[in-house]
């Protein structure tokens, strides 16, 4: 469904991605592991058109994303939950969700349904729905960021380090959300530092180093034989 073929990217003069090739099929959870600074987030940004692509191809559902501006990706079915969450701090929880719910072509009944669904999964958001996004705790903001992506009814969610800086209890919640989304048939490209969680949640895993993919395998295999993990992540 989403294919990156030999993708190169630059930040200014700095060559950050040196030919990344990744594939995510419909409904799959794919993990992207690697140390800090290897280009995991940049890979997601390349898909989102937020970084200058200087080579290779990104194809989604048969469509080359090179000519698609960032603001049209949501309609295609790609949602992004960035590393810093990027909640609209001055908008309320409800307004944050509305940035996704107010999209053209969505019937009011369906909107209500999506909102209810999201509130059911994240009751704390219902409670805080009139509160400004910036007043939420880190964990609550993460939930809001994921909820915001969910109301786009995406085919794939690019999930960037959702457990970073969260308490263990929250981390479990994230794990459950990833499972729930998987059950609902949403594909997930999961960038994470938390290796055990990734190996448990994902079907397949890519490991990156210095702007390229160095290893690729079934999560089950890596769970059984963690040699590659040790080699590239030193964990």
């Amino acid at each position, binding site marked *: 469904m989403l294919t990156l073929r030999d993708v190169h990217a630059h930040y200014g003069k700095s060559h950050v991605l040196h030919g990344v090739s990744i594939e995510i099929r419909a409904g799959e959870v794919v993990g992207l592991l690697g140390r800090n600074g290897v280009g995991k987030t940049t890979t997601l940004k390349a898909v989102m058109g937020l970084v200058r692509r200087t080579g290779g191809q990104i194809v989604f559902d048969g469509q080359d994303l090179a000519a698609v501006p960032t603001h049209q990706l949501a309609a295609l079915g790609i949602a992004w939950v960035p590393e810093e969450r990027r909640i*609209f701090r001055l*908008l309320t929880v409800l307004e944050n969700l509305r940035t996704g719910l107010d999209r053209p072509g969505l019937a009011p009944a369906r909107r209500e349904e999506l909102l209810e669904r999201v509130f059911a999964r994240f009751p704390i958001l219902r409670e805080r729905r009139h509160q400004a996004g910036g007043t939420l705790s880190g964990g609550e903001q993460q939930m809001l960021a994921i909820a915001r992506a969910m109301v786009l009814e995406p085919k794939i969610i690019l999930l960037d380090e959702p457990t970073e800086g969260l308490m263990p209890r929250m981390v479990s919640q994230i794990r459950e959300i990833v499972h729930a989304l998987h059950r609902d048939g949403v594909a997930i490209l999961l960038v994470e530092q938390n290796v055990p969680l990734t190996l448990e949640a994902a079907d397949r895993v890519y490991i990156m180093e210095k702007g390229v993919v160095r290893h690729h395998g079934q999560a089950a295999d890596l769970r059984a034989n963690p040699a590659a993990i040790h080699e590239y992540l030193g964990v």
Partner: protein
Amino acid sequence: MDQLIVQTLHGLVTGMVLAMVASGLTLIFGIMDVVNFAHGDLMMLGAFTGATVLGVTGSFWLALLAAAIAIAVLGVLLQITTLRPLIGRDPLTTILATFGISLVIQKYALWQWGPSVRRITEPVPGHFTLFHLEYPWYRVATALLAGVIIAALWLFLKYGKYGIWIRATTQDRVMAQAMGIPVPLVHTAVFAIGSAMAAASGVLFGPFAGVTQTMGFDFTLRAFIVVVVGGMGNLGGSILASIFVSLVEAYAAIVVSPAQAVIVSFVVLVLTMLFRPTGLFVPTPK
């Protein structure tokens, strides 16, 4: 004492007109980092357009509407042709580009309408007596109308569907795009809104002092001052700042000549930039 009250009235009324001009400017800056040098000139064009329509139709309200729409369209054209290509470049290039546009607009107005002052007749006739002065009703009406328009803008931003788009884009352009908000369209729409408000304030201000090519520059300058003092991108702040600056200038005009009173506004600007650069009416950032 009565001078003080009269000047207070002057300050409040001019402040409301300035607030209309400044709110457009601060919205535009807040959402796309563009310092629109030509903003006051859009106001001036609006005033001239309004004067022409008034001359043809005899209706002030039609003139107001026509001017707002015409200048909004012009604003859209300008934004698409000259400002969109500059996205991502050094923000100072937009100052240069809008400066160039300002020059062209001023000379065009001179060419189209000639050097003599145009008159816009007062929409609301009559005066009331304030001490020994005859104060025109329409000025009060102008202030009220400006207030209504600004309030409408505020409500639209807070509760309207597209208001959320605008606010989201202002806060985080990238994330707004990721959420599917058509940011380029939002930019153009905001520029149109800002232009329309500038044009409308031009028509409203027309009866005060007549319409001339250079009226725009004075307002551009003051609008810059207000936007900085009120906090760039802060709508509420720019409204408060407009009234504040206009009042200060009005009071200063009691002591010095009106031409020199503008220096007081400049001083306010400079002090704000030095000591509270995020704006006087903005809570200190943490």
